[in-house]
């Protein structure tokens, strides 16, 4: 494990104490995005699958399930609690993982086709705790609805991954000067059952591919990858949309231009360069690729909807915050709809691209109903908006501040 080596002084807590009179007007009414997010009244359908916790099912075909905030409380995400996102069908488990072939071709001097067993022994194995986050995480906070799976904040997790650096493999193949982008391929059949065409094939600029935390991973939390998480081998491209972290990895095509597989172009994994009217069709020409995921915080304890005993006047709380390519500088909490803020203690990440623990407390002046808000600020000083901003038809980049509701009994 390596230290992120970021500035420690920047972590000093700062009491923001900013009065913002128009907060109420800037938020959707209570019960809109928040109730949609938690579905407290009815409750989501829960996943029933061997090896997986009872996650909230967003769709069963393809299987998509998110991790409830209170299940995101572990420092390192256990494999059973990691969210599930599929775009196509799940391929069959290989009987011979070591013989699984991975191809690296395109703009390289020596195209490689290497068996997983050889890959594991030929290149240094590294282990990091890395964020995996769905590009559409937070989509349900948009008003009006954006198209796609209605994630709250649960399309994210931070397990420990073991693999080889993609950079080492690309160096072995020898990048040509014409190499500018990657294109990733997995073996999952399309929803219609085709295997001749990719279900999804996204890519990234070479600089991200060469980043030392971008892995070809074969273990999660010390164990072989389960099928649903990409067995026997997958990419882990931390901090960027999860769709880059191709499961069941079979090929990396090094391109001489921006990759153009399914999932690139149009409104897919793109956010507007200039703001568009929420709910409108928008124009593809105004969209730019979503690269780093935005700053986000999630209160993981207590759970939304917690009742506190009469007389409770102090509430300890904790959670995680992360910010794509960046680190978290501060996380502040409020019990008065953002009129006043209180800082929390933020731990350094286990390594770059790992989420960070925040913990603090709030004083509750009386019995009654409270919303506890959390707002993270990253190392660039970029913070979470009060409401999901920069609406786009497919709903990327929604990262409004996190809210839980509690009731202190009378």
């Amino acid at each position, binding site marked *: 494990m390596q230290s992120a080596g970021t500035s420690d002084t920047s972590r000093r807590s700062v009491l923001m104490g900013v009065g913002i009179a128009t907060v109420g*007007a*800037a*938020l*959707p*009414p209570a019960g*809109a*995005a928040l109730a*949609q997010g938690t579905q407290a009244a009815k409750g989501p*359908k829960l*996943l*029933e*699958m*061997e*090896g997986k916790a009872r996650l909230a*099912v*967003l*769709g*069963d*075909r*393809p*299987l998509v399930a998110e991790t409830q905030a209170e299940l995101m409380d572990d420092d390192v995400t256990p494999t059973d609690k990691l969210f*599930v996102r*599929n775009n196509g069908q*799940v391929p*069959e*488990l*290989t*009987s*011979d993982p070591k013989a699984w072939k991975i191809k690296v071709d395109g703009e390289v001097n020596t195209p490689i086709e290497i068996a997983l067993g050889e890959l594991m022994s030929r290149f240094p194995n590294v282990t990091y705790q890395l964020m995996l986050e769905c590009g559409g995480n937070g989509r349900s906070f*948009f*008003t*009006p*609805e954006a*198209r796609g*799976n*209605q994630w709250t904040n649960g399309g994210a997790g931070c397990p420990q991954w073991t693999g080889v650096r993609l950079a080492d493999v690309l160096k072995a193949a020898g990048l040509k000067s014409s190499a500018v982008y990657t294109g990733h391929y997995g073996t999952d059949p*399309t*929803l*219609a059952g*085709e295997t001749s*065409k990719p279900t999804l094939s996204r890519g990234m600029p070479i600089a991200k591919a060469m980043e030392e935390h971008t892995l070809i991973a074969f273990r999660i939390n010390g164990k072989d990858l*389960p*099928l*649903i998480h990409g*067995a026997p081998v997958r990419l882990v491209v931390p901090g960027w949309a999860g769709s880059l972290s191709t499961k069941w990895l079979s090929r990396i095509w090094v391109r001489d231009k921006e990759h153009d597989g*399914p*999932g690139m172009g*149009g*409104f*897919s994994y793109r956010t507007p360069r200039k703001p568009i*009217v*929420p*709910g*409108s*069709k928008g124009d593809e020409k105004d969209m730019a690729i979503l690269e780093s995921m935005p700053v986000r915080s999630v209160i993981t304890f207590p759970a939304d909807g917690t009742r506190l005993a009469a007389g409770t006047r102090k509430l300890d709380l904790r959670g995680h915050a992360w910010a794509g390519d960046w680190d978290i500088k501060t996380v502040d909490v409020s019990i008065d709809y953002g009129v006043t803020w209180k800082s929390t203690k933020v731990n350094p990440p286990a390594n770059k691209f790992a989420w960070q623990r925040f913990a603090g407390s709030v004083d509750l002046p009386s019995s009654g109903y409270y919303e506890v808000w959390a707002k993270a600020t990253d190392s660039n000083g970029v913070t979470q908006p009060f*409401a999901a901003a920069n*609406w786009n*038809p497919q709903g990327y980049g929604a990262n409004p501040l996190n809210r839980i509701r509690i009731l202190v009994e009378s």
Partner: protein
Amino acid sequence: MSQLTVTPVVVITLTATFLLLALDRSGELGRRQPPYAPPARPAAMAPAPAVVDSEKGKPPPHNDTLEDLPEGKGREVTFYACTACHGVALIKAQGLTRDLWDSTFDLMLEKHRMPPVEAAERAEILDYLSEQFPPRRRGRGGDNPFLK
């Protein structure tokens, strides 16, 4: 006389045999054998790979029915057009204007290789989807003055 003595013996023997067989089949006599596993493929040139259950580790099965969609004109044609590939839950989670349902249709045709649909059928599906699954979140943005 001999028949009279032989018959009960036969009856008792047969009854006992059937009873034992039935108990054995139902597992009442204890599990002496491991559950059935298909035989491994005979080795040819290379050693045969271990037999893998093709369903192992896969998501649970799904079984959407027409009734999972709300009643309305166009329900059936919508159901069969959409669930050829994806589940009903994904449809029901959406809340889109007709304009956005229209572009969603294009997305399915262009990016997700949905088979072509005749114009009349497309209109019927779009009518159904925009009637049943319009924007539901209100407030800021939901009634935008700049939205057609």
